[in-house]
């Protein structure tokens, strides 16, 4: 038998699983609607729902990661109003943050626009926020601004922040490393006038915790 490329097999397996998560989510939605309001199980159902949503977002991340890594991702850059884009991201992730009693907000100039691939950046922001959910004490912020020829989207929290040791451990032991790798590939897929996108891991001056900044050439 001809040997098949294992990453391709995994990618299609993930795709299958993702579809099943989708079906589960739909069924859960139906179940939710069939139950009376304010019932005892509502909270538990929300937890399941949020977990499934996260699982779905992770599968999407892995699929894009596979495509980026195998040069199969076609970048579709368009111009977006950051106010709208970040509002969408907060809307999608707010329930997950609230479930952990964390605040999630975004800040940017209401006129700020930028060029990027919406699907990819949605996945990157999602990954970064899910990661921040694990470390933040009370608050997560998404900020966007223009720095010279780069649009900067940053995800900041009030947790312990990045430390050298933590980084290595994370890379080996949890999916954070994979998430960072994904964010890095996504940033560098954005190229404009010979300038490439990149990541910066810093300390958040506003919140004191970690800050992951994604630089996208404009």
């Amino acid at each position, binding site marked *: 038998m001809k040997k098949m490329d294992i990453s391709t097999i995994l990618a299609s397996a993930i795709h299958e699983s993702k579809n099943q998560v989708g079906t589960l989510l739909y069924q859960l*939605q139906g179940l939710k609607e069939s139950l009376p309001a304010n019932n005892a199980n509502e909270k538990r159902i929300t937890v399941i729902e949020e977990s499934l949503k996260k699982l779905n977002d992770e599968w999407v991340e892995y699929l894009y990661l596979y495509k980026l890594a195998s040069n199969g991702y076609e970048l579709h850059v368009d111009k977006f109003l950051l106010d709208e884009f970040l509002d969408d991201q907060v809307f999608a992730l707010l329930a997950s943050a609230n479930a952990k009693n964390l605040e999630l907000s975004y800040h940017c100039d209401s006129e700020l*626009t930028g060029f990027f691939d919406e699907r990819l950046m949605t996945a990157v922001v999602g990954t970064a926020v899910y990661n921040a959910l694990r470390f933040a004490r009370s608050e997560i912020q998404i900020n966007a601004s223009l720095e010279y020829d780069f649009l900067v989207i940053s995800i900041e929290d009030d947790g312990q922040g990045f430390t050298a040791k933590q980084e290595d451990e994370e890379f080996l032991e949890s999916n954070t490393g994979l998430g960072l790798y994904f964010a890095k590939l996504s940033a560098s897929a954005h190229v404009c006038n010979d300038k490439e996108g990149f990541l910066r891991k810093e300390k958040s001056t506003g919140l004191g915790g970690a800050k992951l900044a994604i630089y996208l050439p404009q």
Partner: protein
Amino acid sequence: MRKSDFSSQKALLIEDMAEARIMQKKMLSDFGFETIEIAMKAETAIDLLKTQSFDVILSDYNLGNGKDGQQLLEEVRYSKLIPNTTTYLMVTAETSIEMVMGAIEFQPDGYITKPFSQAVLQRRLSKLLETKHKLIDVNQALDQKNLPKAIAEAYKVMEKYPSLEGKCQRVIGECYLEMKEYQQAKSLFSSILVNRKMPWALFGEARACFYLNQLEQSENKFRQLMLDNRFFVSAYDWLAKIKIAQKDNKAAQVILVDALERSPKNLLRQMELGRLSLIIEDYPTAEFAFRRAVSLAKHSCYNTPEVYLNHLLTFAKLSEKTPISSRQKETFQITLKKVHQLFFDDPSVRAKSYSYEISVFLNSNEINSAKNTFQLWTQDVEAGIAVAPTDKQSSQYTLAFEV
């Protein structure tokens, strides 16, 4: 965010999977849509769109065996079956999104990836409708075919809402192309490309170059587009046009055959291949292309007599060279029957159909059948329901019948 009012709006939901259909319908009715029509496949949707107008169309990309959501969108936009003011939202999966985004020429107003919650759909729809509302004067001018007004309105919108700049510039460029102001179109698209390699601008520039007869430049741009976007099959059609303009019909045919291997269900492309193959006298390819076109035509916006008559014509041409097989004769009869059923009220269609039938009979040495058909034709001419044979046809038939 301002809550949209859906209560005066009509929605069309196109989804083949029962479970998803039921749920999406529930979502839409919860939003308060006045009416919600349902289609389970593209062909039904087209029939509905021919008789009704909708404010919102929510269509799945995957629609089972028939046309997919993107093909449906292209067809209804191309044939102007839906106005520019209608909002088209495509429901996609991770695998199909690339096909939608790569299409460039005909893109939906927005897309939403499965799975999505009711809240997400509501938000997406509200935002799209808001954007459509901002562009209403532009789109109404487009629907009225008042292109100078559309351009003027687009400039106004651009000034008021800078985030819609791209959309407006695109409309302006497309208007210039349609108004045959190619130089103006080209400079607009080029100026956009200086800052950013937007595929739609490159597509516009490539077409402007084509019309300005800068064929090599045009070809390079189309090749670049194909390289960047695997799913942009329309680029093939333009390359074929370039080859035809360069009088290389054979190369054009090869390109079209290649494109059709990628998307065999494209009726207009099948027609183009058929016409081109007739010109270079490759009748077997022409017959095959028009046969596919005939089978695609029925549930499409392009169900015109031309499709069927061209198919009949290929048999007249085929039989000139070699006798046609009984199977081919059967195929000819099937299409002939369709012409009788669908288009025989048109006197010129009737005449053309008779003439092809006579040619096939004559080429197959079935003189009596040819005579019978000619007799029918003559009767129809006398009854005023068919156009008379041309002088050339009459003398040709008289000569043939005498032998």
